[in-house]
């Protein structure tokens, strides 16, 4: 009989940003069983949204569900509320919202890539990507005034306008960023040690991806065509040159490629957005109390964010339900881990880009 070692991974671990606990049963470093415990970050935001805060305050509360995709949380909530109380947002506000979502996607993907590189033991690449990521952080600071938790959207529009100087600054910075991303792309493609670490590791088939309802880059790397940007008419994504990005391999290498190509396509989209921002108000007046049910979906960096709202003609909502991408991704993650080597676990986990504060809320 082989000796089984139980390796606890988390809730505090050097390679983890967030508290999640995996319990790996390993035989000679090969994983035979996984248990996941995800409740460390549960704070009770859904309850607070229906008992402490009024519906107009909630955009900045749900932003604190997750710092990485804060903008998508508040934006999805705002979209759901606007459906109930019938507010028509101006085209300009829609373009500004898209701009922020795409910037957020770039910085989140770069963080994920750098983290994947570090957990594969490649410290120099981590430092390089983090240094390049500061360009995007500067752009976000210029537009919204804060680096991470920018409460940019509000019900009826956005909070801050964009000026010509900022537009020039963004275009200059993005032109700077593009060759750097291509360098990093080259590194992920051609480095000998990274190819040993990434190719064929942590793979999931298209079949399994759809059985376990994987989302976002995790599913698109396996060839499953799921992207809310292509499944929604709310934002004019087709007009600004959106293309769905698919890979067929389904391993860490494929996920990295999806992320890198999405960064490049987001850069193109942002340039298009800046070229044809229409004129108009950035914010509409909001009246009335929400009454009825609505759902809203949006493509966050990690996959689909889903909000369900129910209002009963009061300032407090009756029910706010958040479904976040990592929450749907966990069954697929647990499935992928089986049969892998323990030495690959940090890199695989980082390549999922899990967000536990989203998951537990």
């Amino acid at each position, binding site marked *: 009989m082989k000796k089984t070692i139980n390796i606890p991974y988390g809730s505090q671990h050097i390679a983890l940003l967030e508290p999640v606990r995996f319990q790996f049963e390993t035989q000679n*470093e090969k994983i035979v069983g996984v248990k996941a415990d995800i409740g460390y970050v549960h704070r009770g935001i859904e309850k607070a949204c229906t008992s402490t805060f009024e519906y107009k305050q909630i955009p900045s509360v749900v932003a604190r569900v997750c710092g990485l995709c804060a903008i998508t949380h508040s934006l999805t909530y705002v979209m759901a509320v606007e459906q109930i109380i019938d507010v028509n947002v101006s085209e300009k506000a829609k373009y500004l919202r898209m701009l922020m979502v795409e910037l957020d996607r770039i910085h989140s993907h770069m963080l994920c890539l750098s983290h994947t*590189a570090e*957990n594969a033991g*490649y410290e*120099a690449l981590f430092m390089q990507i983090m240094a390049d990521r500061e360009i995007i952080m500067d752009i976000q600071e210029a537009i919204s005034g804060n680096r991470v938790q920018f409460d940019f959207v509000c019900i009826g529009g956005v909070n801050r306008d964009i000026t010509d100087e900022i537009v020039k600054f963004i275009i200059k910075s993005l032109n700077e960023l593009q060759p750097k991303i291509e360098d990093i792309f080259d590194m992920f493609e051609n*480095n000998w040690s990274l190819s040993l*670490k990434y190719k064929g590791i942590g793979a999931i088939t298209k079949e399994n991806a759809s059985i376990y309802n994987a989302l976002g880059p995790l599913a698109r790397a396996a060839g499953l065509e799921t992207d809310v940007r292509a499944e929604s008419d709310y934002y004019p994504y087709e007009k600004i040159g959106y293309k769905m990005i698919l890979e067929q391999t389904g391993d860490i290498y494929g996920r990295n490629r999806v992320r890198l190509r999405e960064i490049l396509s987001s850069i193109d989209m942002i340039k298009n957005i800046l070229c044809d921002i229409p004129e108009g108000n950035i914010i509409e007046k909001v009246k009335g109390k929400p009454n009825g049910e609505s759902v809203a979906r949006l493509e966050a960096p990690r996959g689909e964010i889903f909000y369900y709202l129910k209002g009963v003609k009061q300032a407090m909502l009756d029910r706010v339900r958040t479904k976040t991408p990592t929450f749907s991704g966990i069954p697929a993650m647990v499935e992928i881990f089986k049969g892998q080597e323990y030495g*690959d676990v*940090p890199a695989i986990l980082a390549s999922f880009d899990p967000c536990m504060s989203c998951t537990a809320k």
Partner: protein
Amino acid sequence: MSWFLALFAPVFGTLVSGIDRVVRARMQRRLGPPLMQPFYDMFKLLDKRPMMVHKLHIVLGVMHFMALWASIALFMFGGHLLYIIFTHLLSVIFLILAGYSVRSPYSHLGANRELLALFAYEPILILMAVGFYLTCGSFEVSVITSNSPAIVSMPLMFIALLILLPLKLKKSPFDAPEAHQELCGGVEIEYSGFFYEVIYVSKMTEIIFVYALVFLFAGQNILLGIILVTGSFFLVNAVDNATGRIRIDHLVKKVYATAFVLALLALGWISYV
């Protein structure tokens, strides 16, 4: 002179490690810590309250350091090369036993990996000693260092040693036994305070041991020795900054497929000529 070198080997190792950290930071476009940073770390560790699991763990850690220091001393006094290699082997075995003596799974995995890495590099070190015997006619370090440079007659053996360098210095791509992101340091995870200092110093001493082996290839030519050591130092750092960590099974395979074959070829070459 040799007394001086043997006694202060840990100090020199710490200095080299300080330079190493600065060079690595500069290669990553950072400022990096001050040059004397490893000394500060060591003085701070002296001042921490130790929290140890049990006494055997402490004893094994201290024995690891003493055996390593003894092997350095043997080297500096010009001793027998095989004795030196086996004393070094003994010190690594103490470390592995220390890893197995506590119940932390990370420590066990680290010890497992350390053992596998030992199997990968130890045969090559022994082949290297045999190579020195064939070229210089003796296992004594003092004889080897008074001969003409051995690198001329066995360059392939030197390349094999270069492949081993990242493994011994715990640098990528061959740092799987320590694996900061997977095992948080592996065998050293349960040490703390003064007793972690012992492990920390022996890591520094290991650096001297490795570069002393590199120096041995220069024979009596001290200038050539210095060039070899600095060259390999920068080479190791450059490789460290251009690769990720490979898995432990890949590590063993790659080391056998390259370094072991090179060492055998070098021996064949010497015997043939």
